[in-house]
């Protein structure tokens, strides 16, 4: 992944309606964000749809990106993930979550294996290691799979209240750890 400043400059060019810069930005960032869509949506067609709509929003809103408030990749990933979450929440009647899990084709390594790879962000890695295994798993699964508390409870076979507590305490501890 190119340096944050470079992505930031490309986004600024997009704000000036530079279509070549937008294409370069897409080529550099789409594979990572497509992987995130696949991780949450588990279906290639839905992931493509979300990716497309998200990049159109990135193009439309490029002028609103403020580099003082967020890193370029974070800003873009929030847009993509927000749309994926919206789709997931809307599709609850299709039961995209737990039921279709075993039927869904393998769209990559599970989130827990992914964490075993090297992490660029040392602080987050260390702070996640400080959490209990259940807290860490809950947070990571929620992030990569977009699970609700109920879906987490089903997936981990743990009571709803327990799962809510893992998330709440895990996040609280993460915050305390990450703050200087």
């Amino acid at each position: 992944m190119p340096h944050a400043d470079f992505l930031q400059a490309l986004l600024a060019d997009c704000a000036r309606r530079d279509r070549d810069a937008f294409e370069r930005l897409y080529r550099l960032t789409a594979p990572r964000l497509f992987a995130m869509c696949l991780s949450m949506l588990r279906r290639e067609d839905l992931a493509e749809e979300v990716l497309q709509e998200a990049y159109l929003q990135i193009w439309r809103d490029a002028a609103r990106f403020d580099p003082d408030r967020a890193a370029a990749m974070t800003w873009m990933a929030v847009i993509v993930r927000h749309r994926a979450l919206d789709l997931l929440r809307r599709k609850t009647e299709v039961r995209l979550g737990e039921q279709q899990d075993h039927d869904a084709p393998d769209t990559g390594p599970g989130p827990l294996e992914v964490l075993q790879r090297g992490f660029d962000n040392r602080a987050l890695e260390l702070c996640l290691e400080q959490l209990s295994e259940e807290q860490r798993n809950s947070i990571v699964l929620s992030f990569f799979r977009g699970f609700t508390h109920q879906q987490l409870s089903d997936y981990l076979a743990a009571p709803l209240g327990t799962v809510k507590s893992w998330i709440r305490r895990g996040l609280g501890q993460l915050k305390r750890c990450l703050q200087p």
Partner: protein
Amino acid sequence: MNHRNPQIRSALAGEYVLGTLHGHARRRFERLLETDEALRREVERWQAALYPLVDTLPDREPPPRVWQAIVRQIAPPAVRREVSLWNNLTFWRSWGLIASTIVLIVAIYLAMDLTRPVPPQYVAVISNVEQQAAWLAQADLAENRLSIQALHPQEVAPDRSFELWLLPGEGKPPRSLGLIPAQGGTSLTLPPDVAQALPQAAGLAVSLESAGGSPTGQPTGPVLYQGQIVPPA
């Protein structure tokens, strides 16, 4: 839910960013965000904290159709060079060399079509000012037909059309041969006097007109492409 308590605010913001806040509670939080700048900053802090997780994912290349769909939906650039080449003598003279090379290649290609006998065809490669070939025209004078094929899809605004003109030369005004498509091909009927004038004509040209073509019978929009007519070998 006490939205003034900083711990609760922070906890809500964290769960909002993670995605575990949903339904009624999520909607209420989103409404708060609209007016609460400090809460927005808290959300941004959580995003900065959690989103580096994205970097642990191995890349997956999206299929080309995704980019194609995106690029189709962002406004196309304005058609370049809306400068009429009609009076530009340099333009008329300068590209002949390149065009004739292209025509030679095309003529060889046509000669290689052995599946059916090819009647004598007048050929023109119609190119833009940057000498990029845009259409291939083939005139079958025995049938009074001109077939025209786009070699690459040409960009055109929805309220515009391309119109094809025969340039008879010798000071005579251009004759419209009809509208031609920006992509794909079509077959135009040549009026007998046009078919007769074609072998001696100076060339073909394409202008950009409003949607139904020129209302006056003469080019009203810029002439963006032209081609020399090459007789059959």
